[in-house]
């Protein structure tokens, strides 16, 4: 015989059991809704190998980078016999049978020199390099030597072309070696390998 008291107990138990079932069912749905949308992204690295041209960095550091400051009165020798003594930090590894004045103007040390002994302004390194490296210069102008960033079609948007000195050191122009990024993982199905390893 059910009494009023017993009915009320059944009610309490029913509510309790329903709560347990509902909480267990909610726990079964494992998706994490707490994550918030983000728009931040990590882009690939597009900095040139050697950064900006060297002169700009030195100028930013407070130097004038003007060769004239020493060479105004001091006539430089035509050969490079005294290079180690006067320019101790310079590593010279550029071609064979080269001297300073293949590139530097004999009278104005702030300028480069072309084949007719005319001055090339120090900002125009491309013209200097082109003096010897004809094929590379031709290819560079055709956008196939050195990286071109931006739009593949110049009609659709701007293109950025790197200068020679952004990849090549003037005095040691061979392209530098670098650390490779890690190789691909050998397992293409790593989830099959979870568990104790094979003997």
């Amino acid at each position: 015989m059910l009494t009023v008291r017993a009915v009320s107990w059944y009610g309490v138990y029913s509510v309790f059991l329903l709560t347990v079932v509902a909480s267990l069912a909610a726990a079964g749905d494992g998706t994490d809704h707490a994550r918030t949308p983000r728009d931040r992204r990590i882009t690939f690295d597009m900095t040139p190998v050697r950064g900006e041209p060297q002169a700009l960095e030195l100028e930013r550091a407070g130097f004038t980078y003007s060769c004239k400051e020493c060479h105004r009165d001091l006539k430089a020798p035509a050969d490079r016999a005294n290079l180690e003594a006067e320019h101790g930090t310079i590593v010279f590894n550029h071609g064979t049978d080269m001297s300073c004045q293949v590139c530097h103007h004999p009278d104005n040390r702030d300028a480069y020199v072309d084949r007719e002994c005319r001055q090339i302004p120090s900002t125009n390194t491309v013209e200097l390099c082109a003096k010897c490296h004809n094929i590379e210069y031709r290819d560079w102008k055709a956008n196939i030597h050195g990286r071109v960033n931006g739009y593949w079609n110049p009609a659709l948007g701007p293109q950025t072309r790197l200068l020679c000195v952004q990849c090549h050191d003037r005095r040691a122009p061979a392209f530098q070696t670098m650390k490779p990024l890690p190789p691909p993982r050998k397992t293409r199905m790593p989830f099959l390998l979870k568990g104790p390893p094979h003997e």
Partner: protein
Amino acid sequence: MSDQEKQAGRGAGIRTLDQIADAPLDRRSFIKIGTAAAAGAAALGWALSPLLDAEGSITIDEFLQRHYERLSADEMQAILRRTENDISARYGVQASLSDPKPLPGVEYAYALNIGRCIGCRRCVEACMLENNTSRDPEIQYIRVLEMQKGSLDLENSDHYYDPDTVPRKDKYYMPVQCHQCSKAPCTKVCPVNATWQEPDGIVVVDYNWCIGCRYCMAACPYWARRFNYSTPSIPADEITTDMAYLGNRIRPRGVVEKCTFCLHRVRKGLNPACVEACPTGSRVFGNLLDPDSPIAYILREKRVYILKEDTGTIPRFYYFFDK
């Protein structure tokens, strides 16, 4: 069963079904039955919980989706929004998904200076970042082969090389990726027409249509296609939110994906990610139909090598030499 046996059974606590059904429901049996029912319901819920997880199942809308070529503009818009919501729910990023169409009068081609590549794998990393490929298990479209100088022996090439610095002496490096072949074998073998060649030459995959049979992977002579053995896992802050339906959107599990020349970028005029990241400038991209493009220049002026030319695939990917 005799009455005597019934009596004996009752004495041992064994009751018939009728007796159980007719028994009055007291508090003790209610708690007993109720607890068992709750435990059963919880166990059932736990067992069925994978079905609640969206990534394992296919929705009715996805199931009824028609082939890409038969979709109306409105249907496409609905699919794009639905996929955006799906990506948002699963990866927590708000993607902007679009379906860029081929540009008229453009046929893309790619050239790679095999003498300049130093094997640094910067292109591989850029490709993964741009194309939202799975990090675990790892999917990479570009495979850089380390080859012995003076040989073209693919069999003995190594793509797991990991020295301190590259390039190594006496080695050269040959990155291989999808060649976007004019006569692409992968598109011919697909039993459901889920992969095809677009008018601008890019071979694409409709990931919603792919059934994952991997015939195309067997057909490809360049090992350019990859299969999603499990749902791609990508950190949310590395996901490229500018996505294309046929391109770099995050793939579902069980479908094939491949290089699309960064379709979402190049159809806006931008260079592919691998071109942008290459520190040596070995990679050149352009319009094959434009006689003033760098690609046309290379085909005119340089020595060009086609990988596995004898397979007759007529690739749009050329290796060239400076000297």
